[in-house]
């Protein structure tokens, strides 16, 4: 078995115009709040009203983004559905919890509880497609999407001719999200989000979104990109990250000089961006550096957006000015490395190659 992993459909719902053709390359939506929402596509095009009535935003985003990815790949029934989410259906969990606490455990209704489980999105996609295949949900903070993708890749290694739907979803909830202002995960001073990558104060912003892709080991398809490898490691010092990077590149026989770009998860957190800075000033000094969290914000599956962006870059063979983090001019994009971490934990690397 080859264990090859190709992306042949990908869609992202985010705080930018990412469901609207190439609009992302032309228009930037500037956010001014530190907690901001994704831009809603027309969910009614993808979800029947009867099914929609109980869906919270994460379910709507997940079901819609997954259908967009399947449509793009021309797949009706995937062979597995694997999702990653940091918090799952946070809005309904929060409402149910607050109802318990405010009403002294009385007059509670089941819908919120049913919707609160982390695998609600995966389950709802299966229900909508009538897909009886493998269906697993990962909740590993900032590595939630990556561990889901690693499972998908393992599935492709185990069986030929598979098409797997894999995605990451997270939503904002009014109070739970704000709690992270109290523990310092979210910045305490106002900031124009577009300037996020230059911020040096503690904490970051928070947002929401859904990115889904179909991956396959069928190389005869019209594929967009190949995921050469993806890996995670839970904890590491900045020095250890460099060692991990070296090992990762070596096992894929890729040199730093082969990289046309690196997409970094820099989120303006003055306490933790040094993980990126060290690489930016060191091994990546001569590589085109790309950032995106000043556009779509930060959440536990924000890093899935880097795959969407990578695929777009392969497709367009150009970069919007707004994502460039250094003054390097690159004209051809064939190989891209992704690196993400959150607060020094849940690090991930991935290597994308244009098909």
């Amino acid at each position, binding site marked *: 078995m080859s264990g090859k992993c190709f992306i042949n459909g990908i869609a992202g719902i985010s705080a930018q115009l990412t469901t609207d053709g190439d609009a992302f390359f032309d228009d930037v939506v500037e956010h001014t709040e530190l907690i901001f929402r994704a831009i809603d596509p027309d969910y009614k095009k993808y979800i029947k*009203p009867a099914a929609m*009535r109980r869906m919270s935003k994460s379910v709507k985003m997940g079901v819609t983004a997954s259908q967009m990815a399947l449509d793009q790949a021309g797949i009706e029934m995937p062979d597995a559905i694997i999702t990653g989410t940091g918090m799952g259906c946070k809005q309904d969990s929060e409402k149910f919890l607050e109802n318990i606490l405010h009403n002294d455990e009385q*007059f509670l*209704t089941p819908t919120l509880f049913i919707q609160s489980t982390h695998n609600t999105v995966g389950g709802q996609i299966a229900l909508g497609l009538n897909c009886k295949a493998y269906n697993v949900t990962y909740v590993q903070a900032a590595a939630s999407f990556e561990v889901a993708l690693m499972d998908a890749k393992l599935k492709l290694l185990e069986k030929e001719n598979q098409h797997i739907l894999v995605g990451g979803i997270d939503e904002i909830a009014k109070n739970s999200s704000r709690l992270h202002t109290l523990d310092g995960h979210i910045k305490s001073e106002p900031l124009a989000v577009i300037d996020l990558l230059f911020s040096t104060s503690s904490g970051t912003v928070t947002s929401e979104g859904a990115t889904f892709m179909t991956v396959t080991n069928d190389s005869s398809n019209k594929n967009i990109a190949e995921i050469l490898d993806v890996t995670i490691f839970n904890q590491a010092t900045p020095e250890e990250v460099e060692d991990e990077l070296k090992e990762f590149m070596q096992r894929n026989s890729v040199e730093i000089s082969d990289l046309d770009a690196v997409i970094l998860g820099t989120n303006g957190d003055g306490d933790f961006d040094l993980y990126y800075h060290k690489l930016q000033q060191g091994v990546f000094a001569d590589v085109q550096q790309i950032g995106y969290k000043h556009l779509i914000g930060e959440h536990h599956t924000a890093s899935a957006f880097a795959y969407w962006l990578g695929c777009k870059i392969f497709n367009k063979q150009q970069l919007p000015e707004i994502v460039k983090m250094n003054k390097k001019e690159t004209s051809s994009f064939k190989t891209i490395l992704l690196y993400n971490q959150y607060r020094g934990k849940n690090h991930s690397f991935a290597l994308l190659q244009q098909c």
Partner: protein
Amino acid sequence: MADLQLELKEKIIEQLSLEDIEVSDIDDNDPLFGDGLGLDSIDALELIVLLEKDYGIKLKDPKEGKAIFESIGVMAAYIENNRTK
């Protein structure tokens, strides 16, 4: 009784998020489940809470709901006879 039936329709539409349905779409004798309004078992549990919260009627066994929630008419009659608030 007609008031209670109207009240129930409004409450059901709100509680069950039936966004595309108007009070006038629901006939007093339409079945609420299956072919009628198309409610399901989760809605039945929601209606049990509605009975308790708004009319002080506590059902012990969810199976009891099947007969009570047959239609708006049946439900209203049951509430009239059993309400404690």
